[in-house]
């Protein structure tokens, strides 16, 4: 199997354009401490020829010193980058790894399996298209497998590859593989995955990772890499309504005023009717400006500068959205928190909430329920400790524009910042809550606009852009 065509065989122009026009897939790997997660990533890097000779030399030296594979090269050491990790033989922090084939580029978030590092997994999962969940064929599904599957589903990942590793140690038993798949499907049924692709493999030996294995003739599917090369990328984000948070107002002279931002979702073109949230003012897109010239349209994932047809007030913190699907504007949020701080969270605490490009004060008015990390069941909680997942109500000191996280990961996700330590204390997901408390004080402009709207616009007002 050819990972990279040589330019000589391919022709330079075709070769360059093939590489310059590749897509990228972001995925997260998760598994328990000994499932062989780092080994799997090491194997992907190694077999796609991303490991260089000087790195192999360093690896051989490190394997003798810290390796856990006896005399053999320990591929896991490629990924465990920090001294403490090498010394303890564990992965402490989320690491990003990169490899590419002729078909795609890949960004891998490798996340630790320890329970206390839930926040790292949530970070890695927040931008991933796919999750690769590792299971040790001997151990079967563990508490951590359940936690990881729940966590990636909570963070909105729809596609999962269940990598059943160490198949060589169970004699490549088809029965064992099917038993594990059935158990996983049973557990994952309520988690809303649109695809679960199970692959029997051995990361240590390389079977069914990049190259097909020969030990399991009963397996007719593709190796893991081929799945990752073909799975759809960012479909949901492209289909969602247009949203762009304004980062910066570009005003080099009195003739130009552009709103710079990264398009979080959807598509935009000159002439499109837009709303500037949270003020609710309406306008039309006049130009999409980039350093490469004006664009006839722009899509999710592009950084652009928008010029509006009207001189309306917009600044950092505003969100420019399609007039067809306004956002929910509210000063009260029902949210699911992944508590990352070492300190406890008690009701009444005030933190900073960074939502898109706006930062506001947020009071945790109530902790509604804690989520059991294995079953997903709610349970009562008076306080939160590190790595707890819980549903809370937040009151903000001013109204902001939001979407439900289930509808849009970028406009529905936020972070809470500790005002004293300035650390990131929590990751938050805004819940689709039609029964959310009504806005106490609608901004004047919004009231003005909404009062003229019919039933449909009021409905949108209540439900947001869902």
């Amino acid at each position: 199997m050819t990972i990279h065509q040589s330019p000589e065989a391919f022709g330079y122009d075709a070769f360059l354009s093939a590489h310059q026009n590749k897509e990228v897939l972001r995925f997260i790997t998760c598994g328990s401490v000994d499932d062989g997660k780092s080994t799997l990533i090491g194997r992907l890097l190694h077999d796609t020829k991303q490991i260089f000779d000087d790195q192999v030399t360093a690896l051989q030296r490190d394997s003798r010193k810290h390796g856990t594979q006896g005399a053999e090269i320990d591929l896991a050491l490629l990924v465990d980058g920090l001294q403490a990790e090498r010394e303890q033989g564990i992965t402490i922090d989320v690491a990003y790894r990169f490899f590419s084939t002729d078909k795609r580029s890949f960004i891998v978030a490798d996340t630790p399996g320890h329970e206390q590092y839930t926040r790292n997994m949530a970070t890695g999962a927040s931008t991933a298209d796919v999750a690769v969940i590792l299971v040790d064929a001997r151990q079967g599904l563990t508490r951590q497998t359940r936690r990881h599957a729940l966590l990636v589903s909570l963070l909105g990942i729809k596609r999962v590859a269940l990598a059943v590793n160490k198949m060589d140690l169970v004699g490549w038993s088809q029965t064992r593989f099917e038993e594990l798949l059935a158990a996983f499907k049973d557990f994952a049924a309520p988690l809303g995955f649109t695809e679960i692709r199970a692959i029997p493999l051995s990361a240590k030996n390389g079977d069914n990772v990049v190259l097909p294995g020969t030990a399991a003739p009963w397996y007719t599917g593709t190796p893991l890499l081929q799945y990752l090369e073909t799975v759809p990328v960012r479909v949901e984000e492209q289909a969602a309504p247009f949203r762009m948070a304004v980062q910066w107002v570009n005003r080099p002279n009195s003739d130009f005023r552009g709103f710079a931002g990264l398009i979080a979702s959807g598509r935009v073109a000159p002439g499109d009717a837009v709303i500037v949230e949270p003020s609710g003012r309406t306008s039309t897109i006049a130009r999409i400006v980039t350093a490469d010239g004006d664009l006839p349209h722009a899509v999710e994932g592009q950084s652009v500068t928008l010029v509006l047809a009207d001189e309306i007030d917009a600044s950092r913190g505003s969100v420019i959205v399609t007039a067809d699907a306004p956002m929910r504007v509210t000063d009260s949020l029902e949210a699911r928190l992944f508590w990352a701080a070492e300190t406890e969270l008690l009701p009444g605490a005030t933190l900073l909430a960074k939502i898109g490009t706006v930062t506001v004060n947020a009071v945790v008015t109530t902790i509604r329920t804690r989520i059991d990390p294995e079953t997903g069941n709610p349970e009562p909680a008076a306080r939160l400790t590190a790595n707890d997942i819980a549903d809370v109500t937040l009151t903000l000191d001013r109204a902001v524009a939001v979407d439900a996280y289930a509808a849009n990961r970028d406009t529905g996700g936020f972070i809470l910042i500790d005002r004293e330590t300035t650390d990131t204390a929590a990751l938050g997901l805004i819940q689709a809550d039609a029964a959310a408390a009504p806005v106490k004080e609608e901004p004047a402009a919004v009231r003005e606009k909404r009062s003229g709207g019919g039933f449909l616009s009021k409905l949108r007002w209540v439900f947001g852009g869902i």
Partner: protein
Amino acid sequence: MSGAPLTTQAATTQAATTQAASRSARLTHLQRLEAESIHIMRETVAETENPVMLYSIGKDSSVLLHLALKAFAPGRLPFPLMHIDTTWKFKEMIAFRDQRAKELGLDLIVHTNQDGLARGIGPVSHGSEVHTDVMKTQALRQALDKHRFDAAFGGARRDEEASRAKERIVSLRTAQHRWDPKRQRAEPWHLYNMRKKRGESLRVFPLSNWTELDVWLYIEQERIPIVPLYFAKPRPVVEREGQLIMVDDDRLPLNPGETPKDVSVRFRTLGDYPLTGAVESSAATLPEIIGETLAARTSERQGRVIDKDGAGAMERKKQEGYF
């Protein structure tokens, strides 16, 4: 302070519009990387008081500068560039730096550790470890303190080295410029926490998710000017401990019996010339370099002598305030 002159940008707009229009709705990997880097730069400018871009003259810095000009176009670059000059850079690097600054009208700060210079610290006399500490790490801390920069952009990439793979895009430094790998902030979605306490500062790495190959492909796609040392041509080199060291001036003492030989070489990374190994190559064009990059059997940092100052060298240097 000034950025790219608006007139030259207007002249290229026509051709670029056609190029931009031909791009389909499916974004390429390079388009997404570019957009992510631009987003990071705009966030930093919006949320910090006094940012600066660390400009090392290398290919990654060239890409970083190109992205910054794009991020704020048609406006000017809203921050200065700063080069930490150890006085041991290749002559061609300094010439390139000054030419680019003039062409683009850049606000460029050049800082050298005058104390280290007075003490005669250098890579040949004091070795790479002392030289790097005094003339790079300490020099950088001096300059950041002197100008009271609270955020500094750097061109480091996560694929370069193991400890870099674990560093956040926005990385907090103490008032003493130390990095604490155990106290890193979660960085979900596209949300960067840029809050810091008085005296603390941020290192921001917009190229975190780029690889060496991405950088080359982007330089080719965008026609970004780079230092000619990246292209192969015959250059006078000596071989030391498996490294090909270019004799860039007469400060490199030759060992008895050692004579520089003209060998066709290029550089995969650029730094202080006595500490930067060349690779034998005939790749004189970008497609040829990209071809070699894909076929390469060694990592680009193999040419960096400072990475070999013991296991975990980079992690330790970073904790001490090295970029």
